[in-house]
């Protein structure tokens, strides 16, 4: 069956990258409609009605976030697009910006209009420099066509849009770190409150939205918030880009209607196409490296035995003991030959490397976790290391300035929770552990054969 594609319908058409092709396929209609026929608050109202939730990971309702923007002073307001995509497993925003840059620009114009913003920035990770050039070209085209600049389309609304590169720091995906970075400083997250909606960039009211979130706005304006809300399932409205990777046959970015069963997403040919080499599915990280890993038996079904769906609610069903999170949609699939200890060490090395170092639990704790995990992976672990690791992650979680501390702790906690036998095996069989992998283990007790 053909699925509804809100963002990616035309993405394979080469001409869509340019402004003419984009307009030919219905682009910039939302800007025309919003600027000429709507009031800013009406745009926000439609976004509220749509139930759109932030696509960067936290899933906070976008319309509500917008309504927090402080209007009680004369300071300029800013809209920042968070294009600092760096959560391991996530590579979806890259596709949008590379293939259909004008969608983001159109979304930025309409969103800026709703928020009363006169200058907006797209903060893109520095490694995506080649995409920055694509966006810059698209922005130049939009200026030339009168979609940006003074008196857009003859209206009284004016907007300047700039693209700004990062320099290689995962933490700048945290919105206050992004603001600091855009101010030309180190990407140290700020202490909240004050929240950016009140005091953000240069002390002015600021909204930070993810690329995919912004790209949804044109559809919502064109078709109405209710139409969008009718797509998806429950409070998980609309579509979501899922970037699928790991040991699957068809890695790539898929736009799904929220509510697709996880089993279908992994095994159907429309999406991941099953596990590569016909191997068994061992584990899944459904929402980017920081969300809890799920063992086989909790992937396609929840602990209650209900089918697990690709939605905010279903993926988190069971809480941390038996659930995970949709997060940013970084869908990482592990086959039977993957080592959970090695992967957990790899992730904790990532978090150690990326910690900004500003607050003590994260600065010191991430390094400690990495060292313990490294020791276990390389055959020098001790049984008490498992409890120590559990204790260290618990002392980081919830005690830091920003959610990075949690993000570094959750993968470690979940790996121990579900794969403790594999950690123990590493300790008990250090030599063997360096030669072969543990396999499926107790954590993935056999369930009925899942097929497409």
């Amino acid at each position, binding site marked *: 069956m053909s699925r509804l594609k809100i963002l990616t319908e035309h993405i394979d058409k080469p001409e869509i990258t340019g402004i003419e092709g984009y307009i030919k396929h219905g682009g910039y209609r939302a800007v025309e409609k919003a600027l000429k026929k709507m009031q800013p608050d009406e745009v926000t109202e439609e976004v509220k009605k749509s139930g759109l939730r932030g696509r960067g990971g936290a899933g906070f309702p976008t319309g509500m976030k917008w309504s927090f923007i402080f209007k009680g002073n004369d300071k300029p307001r800013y809209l920042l697009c968070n294009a600092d995509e760096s959560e391991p497993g996530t590579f979806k925003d890259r596709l949008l910006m590379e293939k259909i840059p004008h969608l983001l620009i159109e979304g930025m114009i309409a969103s800026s209009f709703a928020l009363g913003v006169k200058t907006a920035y797209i903060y893109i990770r520095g490694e995506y420099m080649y995409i920055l050039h694509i966006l810059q070209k698209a922005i130049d085209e939009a200026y030339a066509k009168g979609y940006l600049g003074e008196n857009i389309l003859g209206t009284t609304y004016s907007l300047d849009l700039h693209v700004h590169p990062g320099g290689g720091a995962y933490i700048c995906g945290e919105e206050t770190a992004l603001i600091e970075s855009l101010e030309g400083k180190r990407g140290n997250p700020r*202490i909240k409150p004050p929240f950016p909606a009140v005091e953000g960039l240069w002390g002015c009211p600021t909204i930070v939205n993810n690329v995919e979130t912004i790209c949804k706005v044109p559809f919502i304006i064109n078709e109405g918030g209710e139409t969008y809300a009718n797509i998806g399932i429950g409070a998980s409205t609309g579509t979501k880009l899922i970037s699928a990777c790991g040991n699957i046959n068809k890695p790539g970015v898929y736009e799904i209607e929220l509510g697709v069963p996880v089993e279908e997403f992994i095994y159907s040919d429309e999406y991941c196409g099953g596990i590569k080499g016909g191997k068994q599915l061992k584990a899944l990280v459904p929402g980017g490296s920081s969300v809890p890993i799920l063992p086989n038996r909790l992937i396609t079904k929840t602990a209650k035995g209900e089918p697990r769906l690709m939605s905010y609610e279903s993926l988190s069903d069971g809480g941390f003991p038996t659930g995970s999170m949709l997060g940013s949609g970084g869908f990482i699939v592990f086959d039977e030959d993957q080592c959970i200890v090695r992967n957990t060490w790899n992730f904790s090395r990532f978090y150690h490397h990326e910690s900004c170092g500003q*607050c*003590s*639990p994260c600065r010191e*704790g991430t*390094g400690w976790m990495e060292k313990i995990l490294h020791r276990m992976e390389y055959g020098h672990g001790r049984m008490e290391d498992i409890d*120590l690791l559990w204790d260290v992650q618990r*002392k980081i979680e919830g*005690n830091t300035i920003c959610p990075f501390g949690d993000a570094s702790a959750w993968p470690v906690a979940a790996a121990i929770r579900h794969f403790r036998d594999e950690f123990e095996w590493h300790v008990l069989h250090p030599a063997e552990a360096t030669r072969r992998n543990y396999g499926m283990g107790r954590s993935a007790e056999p369930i009925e054969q899942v097929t497409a």
Partner: protein
Amino acid sequence: MPKVTIDNITIDVPPGTTILNAARMIGENVPPAMCYYSKLKGSGGKCRVCLVKVTKTSEQNPRGMPKLVASCVTQIADGMVVENITSPEVVEARKGVVELLLINHPLDCPVCDQAGECHLQDLSYEHGAATTRYDFGRRTFNKIDIGPYIQLHMTRCILCYRCVYTADQLTDGRVHGIINRGDAAEISTYIENIIDNDFSGNVIDVCPVGALTDRTFRFKSRVWFTKPMNAHRNCDKCSGKVTLWFQGEEVLRVTGRKDQYGEVEEFICNTCRFETKKKSDWVVEGHRRIDTHSVIAQNHLPYELDVVHPQIEQAQ
């Protein structure tokens, strides 16, 4: 005035007061502070040792806050209820933070000039574990002389950023800062520029540990063998109000006058601190009162302490 209850003690405080300052006003069960410094704008929130539990956010919002909060940067609201040492969760978290602060600290107190007046030493005595569970190599750095008066021993640093705020706010043209990232971050001048400024010596006073020490005092004595006396002189750069630390008739060092939370009352200039170290340079006023908790109080009479009135931060 808004009311706040901390560990079952209720107090009225001016709007905009932080939980930590409200606790300082109560004067009991005050959360420790390693990075917050009331005289430095923007300080606080980083070390996480002052975490407390808010069980009721305000009169309007009876729910508590979902996570522990840093009391030094969280403003009170009318009706707020806070648990500090009455919350096992807080005590546990604080113990955890102290453990993490110590894993890379050299614990070289026997040869550290800060010993006896070190906040980390007090903190680990009060909240730390008896043994360490960290058995990896510790982070080390070479000692660096920052000019003739100050030595930076980065290995001891806990990255509280106080010295950076000091340089930013007391001097024009800050030359030192935080470089690198994560647990490789360090206080540095990068190419070891000399901090050459009339007020640079204050970084020694604000440093909660022995990372920044006074080169003119290094290894001269243990602080608990010295005798603190308030003194003043006419100074055209600062107030000239200092504490002199005597051994016999000899002035071993000069510092700002520190209150019971270890914060100086006023910042002093380098001339007063480093260049006027003869007793005859000063008008000696009398004993500097020292918190009886401090080992420095040993061998000295236990004077009544001056009451500290926390400076109320205005809502930004």
